[in-house]
């Protein structure tokens, strides 16, 4: 394995299936088939409460997706800037970026969510969902920054030198040569972070954002079907992350085309 083929391993998302693994008997397939079966069979066998839960929760799925996609987009931008900042030779920029990462890493996400939510509320009135997105992105931006930093660092310095020697400046070198290659190394951990973020959006349910978990809690507290509700919620989250992890694996496979002989 050459230096460029090193993978960054950050494992708090979900297992990304190996795209080369075409076997039907894989953990991914078993989990998927099991999840889908339960999601179909339970409501059929016992429409009350399972079918009712299923009709109550979907509004929340949309909210969860909205929060996830908005947060990850913002986190990617913050992450790229943070990663570049952490690699910057400018002491001041480097310090700011490092400080940000240190702070975010040291404070639990739930505490950050509360903090940003209420701190933001003192300055401006923004909708709850926007506050939630900002808080999530602020936290994940720091992790994303580390991913970008590692990804950029994993690219052989010879690539940069070749680019500079042709007359490209540092910014062009980053844009045309380093980042397009780093992206391939970065994608698996970014995919991982994406899935981790999706799961962590369940925390925003405490901020009056009506995501999957919030909708579920609302239903459960009315009907007292706690066990059944949380079963369905767990299955819905599982289905989403299983599908996402497969999509990411396929994307990763496509991006690696130039590494295949």
């Amino acid at each position: 394995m050459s230096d460029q083929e090193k993978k960054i391993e950050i494992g708090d998302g979900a297992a990304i299936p190996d795209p080369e693994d075409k076997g039907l008997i894989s953990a991914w397939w078993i989990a998927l088939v099991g999840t889908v079966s339960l999601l179909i069979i339970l409501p059929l066998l016992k429409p009350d409460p399972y079918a009712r839960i299923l009709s109550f929760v979907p509004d929340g799925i949309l909210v969860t997706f909205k929060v996830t996609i908005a947060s990850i987009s913002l986190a990617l931008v913050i992450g790229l800037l943070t990663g570049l900042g952490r690699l910057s030779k400018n002491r001041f920029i480097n310090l700011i970026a490092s400080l940000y990462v240190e702070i975010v890493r040291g404070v639990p996400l739930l505490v950050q969510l509360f903090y940003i939510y209420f701190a933001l509320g003192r300055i401006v009135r923004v909708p709850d969902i926007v506050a939630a997105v900002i808080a999530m992105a602020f936290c994940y931006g720091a992790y994303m920054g580390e991913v970008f930093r590692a990804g950029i660092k994993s690219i052989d310095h010879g690539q940069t030198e070749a680019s500079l020697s042709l007359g490209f400046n540092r910014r062009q070198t980053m844009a045309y040569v380093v980042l397009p290659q780093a992206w391939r190394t970065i994608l698996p951990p970014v995919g991982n972070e994406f899935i981790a973020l999706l799961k962590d959006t369940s925390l925003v349910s405490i901020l009056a954002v009506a995501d999957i978990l919030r909708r579920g809690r609302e239903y459960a507290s009315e009907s007292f079907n706690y066990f059944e509700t949380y079963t369905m919620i767990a299955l819905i989250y599982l289905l989403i992350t299983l599908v996402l992890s497969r999509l990411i694996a396929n994307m990763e496979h496509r991006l690696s085309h130039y590494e295949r002989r």
Partner: protein
Amino acid sequence: MNAADPIIKIRHINKYFGSFKALDDVSLDVAVGEKVVVLGPSGSGKSTLLRTINRLETISSGSIIVDGHDLYDPDEDINRIRMELGMVFQNFNLFRHKTVLENLTLAPIKLKKMDRGMAEEMAYELLDKVGIRDRANHYPIQLSGGQQQRVAIARALAMEPKIMLFDEPTSALDPEMIGEVLEVMITLAREGMTMVVVTHEMGFAREVADQVVFMDGGAIVEEASPDSFFDHPVHARTRLFLDQIL
């Protein structure tokens, strides 16, 4: 600048890596069309010297003037100067995410604003020249080392540089591939390209060089024509070096 002026003027440069002195008061002139081959044991500073010429390596003191541009004049644009200086690396350093053709066209399109059609036409001509046209749409990893290095030479030539710098271009190659790369370099030399070549290929030095420079301990020990360098080396260290490798 008149025609007799050297295109590269290196004056009393020193370079430190921490407390280690990598270059020790080095001065060197390269005339237009001249081929200079730099020899020396590993760690002698020859690659470092080559890399100072396009400022991939900065110097601690002294001056370097390339085609009339002072590399350390803050008013000069180093990126513009680098366009005049093609560089070939030991490890090829082809852009791994680009096809052979894209490796050649990227810089002309982005830096010279050449249109894609023209850039590709020129790229194909260069690939013909290095004998590798049929691999235009392959990725670097799909090529042999010798092929990659020939593409790397073509990539540098695509910017139509006035000077070509070669940093041990055959050192990472399997022996059977060295010939094909040297052949391309010899053709280039015959066409009148100004070349500075760091290498261990003595045959190439003898055949192509106008001037052989021998370095040891960060300093230039001996400068001579290839014939007198190989047949009548003056310095003891040069003789020792030649004894060891010939």
